[in-house]
């Protein structure tokens, strides 16, 4: 089971944990497991249309899954997944 790092905003729904482990062979399955296990996250990660929420970025080992295979991105043992909110970045 891969580690999933949660953003501050979502930790309240997971008893304050910074990182959790859930089942899944793809990013989509991992996010579904998260929402099943922690119902407070329901609707916050994946929209009703089955798309990643536009202000949520999910990273597989530092790479944004939107530019890999989106929710179909495969996840392997030992991978680290991080969920981060999309905010105004940088080099302004």
């Amino acid at each position, binding site marked *: 089971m891969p580690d999933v790092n949660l953003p501050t905003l979502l930790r309240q729904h997971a008893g304050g944990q910074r990182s959790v482990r859930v089942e899944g062979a793809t990013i989509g399955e991992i996010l579904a497991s998260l929402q099943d296990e922690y119902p407070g996250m329901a609707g916050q990660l994946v929209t009703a249309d089955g798309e990643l929420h536009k202000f949520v970025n999910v990273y597989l080992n530092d*790479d944004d899954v939107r530019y890999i295979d989106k929710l179909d991105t495969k996840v392997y043992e030992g991978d680290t997944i991080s969920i981060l909110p999309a*905010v105004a970045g940088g080099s*302004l």
Partner: protein
Amino acid sequence: MPVLASVLDLIGNTPLVDVSALSPNPNVRILAKLEGHNPGGSVKDRIALSMIEDAEQKGVLAPGATLIEPSSGNTGIGMALVCRLKGYKLKIVLPGNVSVERRQLIELWGAEVIDSPAEQGSNGAVRMAQLLSSAHPEWTFLYQYGNLANPRAHYDGTGPEIWRDCPEITHFVAGLGTSGTLLGVGRFLKETNPQVQVWAVEPPTGDTVQGLRNLDDGYIPPIFAELGGADLLDRKTVVGPRDSIEWTRRLADLGVFAGISSGAALAGAVKCANAIDRGTIVFVSSDGGWKYLSTGAWTDELDVVVERTRRMTYF
């Protein structure tokens, strides 16, 4: 070299330098586009000039007008330079946690700095500028995140320069802030050679930013959405402060004195070099190292600098 009439004529036409000594793959060249050679010291001189001249051409900037803009530093510095020379007044909303040199440069060209909360980073600066702009309709808000003259500066300038100097480019790597560099250069390069891959590098800011109440408070630059950024980029990767500083120091070993976000972009280029068989990667070094001397980036112990950088807006 011809004598130039104005410092503004020095903007653009920056050099590419080969830093392949840092490439982990002998079949992959890595070239740095040194934007620190712009007169205000960063890539942002390009968009400052482009946005202001675009507004002049559209007739929205009266002589002596006052402008307001959020910036983590470089756009503020570039705009302060252009506004000083063109006679405009300028107010820059700056997060309280940027390096002291950034503030000094903005002020030395006569602009006023308005502080936004440090813990909210760039996100907070954008929000404060939006509020101030609504409260002061007499100020002109060019809004770099939503202004097409931002990516156009790179579509018309940076992109063609890279193609002119390095038509063998296979991969382009740059930091993602407003997304202007990636959108403008990326689109130009892909139109010229559809095989070119575009990689974005971003700092792990998402979780250090405070003041987000929920995920719907998130932010995507309007130009990114408008110009189809999600379809243009081939890869987006996060580079943290430790890798950024280590690669910034390795650049210095080759004589390239660059800012911390340049190390992040180089770390992205190195990751790319490891992922491909052969090719030529061009990455953008957004600014020189001068504005970061006070952070101890080259002189203090790595762990100390990394910890300090975590609390800074350096991209």
